Every structure is written in C-alpha cells, then in structure tokens.
C-alpha cells in the first residue's frame, strides 16, 4: 500500500496480549458537581465497568474494535486495547450518587459534591 507502512497482519495480532491504556480525560468542577469526561472509543454501556471503593474510582472498558465481516487487516495504527484509569476522589463528593453516561465513545461521569459542613463554634466553659 503506497505511503502507508504495513504494520502487521491480522494473523500476527491474534497472538499479542491486549494492552491497557489510560483514556484521555477532562475534569471540570462546577458549584455542585465534578464532571469527568473520558475518551473511550468503541465502548458502550455493556463493555464499561465503573467501581467506587471508598474514594477510589476505577474506570475499565473493554474495547471491541469492530472487525468488518470477511475482511483482512492490511494497515493498522490502533490495536485492540482496553481502557483503565483510577482516580482518587476528594472527600467532598457523594460517591453514592455518581451518574455515568456513555455517548459517541465519550464517558461522562457526574459526581455530586456534598454541601460543606457548617462551621460550628464551640463555646469554652470556664470551670
């Protein structure tokens, strides 16, 4: 194929173990929520696993690069690989109310912030 380097044939990729990469991520904080957007092309709601253990948030997605039926791979720049990334959440978020939506290969996590505890003044009694 002119101008395109032939990296490897489909046959040879079958033996290579799947690699895992960190998805590119944007994190935006608003008054009420923390928004996390991660690029996970090829991932749908069924191939995505999100877990929260205390304040450790883990995203794992199994990438199924669609193989067109009856076709042979002749030039490759992206291999099938999985996405995984861990984030340590602050203590000012409500991990029970995280919402996750995946659209067009972008995962959008909405993490609500908890209202900061009111500062309380403690009166010191003299004895």
């Amino acid at each position, binding site marked *: 194929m002119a101008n395109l380097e032939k990296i490897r044939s489909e046959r040879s990729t079958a033996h290579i173990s799947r690699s895992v990469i960190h998805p*590119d*991520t*944007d994190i*935006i904080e*608003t008054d009420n929520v923390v928004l996390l957007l991660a690029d996970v092309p090829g991932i749908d709601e069924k191939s995505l696993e999100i877990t929260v253990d205390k304040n450790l948030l883990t995203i794992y997605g199994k990438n199924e690069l669609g193989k067109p039926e009856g076709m042979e791979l002749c030039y490759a*720049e*992206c291999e099938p690989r999985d996405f995984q990334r861990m984030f*340590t959440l*602050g203590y000012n*978020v409500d991990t029970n109310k995280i919402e996750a939506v995946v659209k067009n290969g972008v995962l959008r996590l909405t993490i609500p912030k908890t209202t900061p505890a009111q500062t309380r003044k403690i009166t010191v009694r003299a004895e």
Partner: protein
Amino acid sequence: MMWDFWSEMDKLHDRVNRVFHNLPGMPARREYPAVNIWRSEDRLVLTAEMPGVEAQDLDISVEDNLLTLTGVRKTTEMKEGETLHLRERLQGEFKRHIELPYRIDKDNVEAKLINGILQVNLPRSAEEKPRKITVNVQ
C-alpha cells in the same frame, strides 16, 4: 478532587516515549485520527477512532484513490465560575489525507459512526478491478 499520581506518571512516560518515537528514522508520526484499513477482493474498509465527534461535524471526501477526513472535535464548554482540573482530550479541527492503493467507486462510499468509531466502506472502482488476460497461442 485529585487524580491518581502514578497514573499521571505513567501517562507522562507514555508522552515522553511518543516524543522520542517521532524522531527522524523512527516510525512515522501519528496523525489524527488513527486509522486501520481492512481489505477484501472488491473493497476496503477504513476504521478510525474519533470519540466525541458528531456525524454532522465530520466530512469524508473521496477523489480517485485519495480519501480525506475533515472534522472538528468540539471543546468542552466551560461556564463562568467552573474550574478546570485536567484537560487531556484533543480538541479542535483535524484534516487527514489517506492514499488508498486503488481508485474508489465514490458513488457507493458509505460511512457510519458508532460509539466513537468511524467505519467507511470503500468499494473498488469497476474499471480498476483486476482483469484476467488471456494468452493467445499462435
């Protein structure tokens, strides 16, 4: 909110490696979007990862054996008072030319965008299909 320090170190390591891989004599610099090309006897199929790109923001054109992908990845909109903690996702316009090994029947090119992966079906032009040449015995 904090992100994982070691994950970030790994990421940085990846980026440094990428810089060194782009030195002359090393494999070609990766253009956006990364593509895979599949073939069968009568057609090619191009697949490309483009998460977050909407179908209306993508333009595909085919001229002879040259395929051009033009599009834009929209910025995550920020309102006043919002804080940006991390920005890694690529954004902005992109254009990529891909030279194919033969001419394409451009009237029958079909494309679909599923879960951020583009798939373009590129049938070989009829006049370019391999011909069998009969050898006459004299």
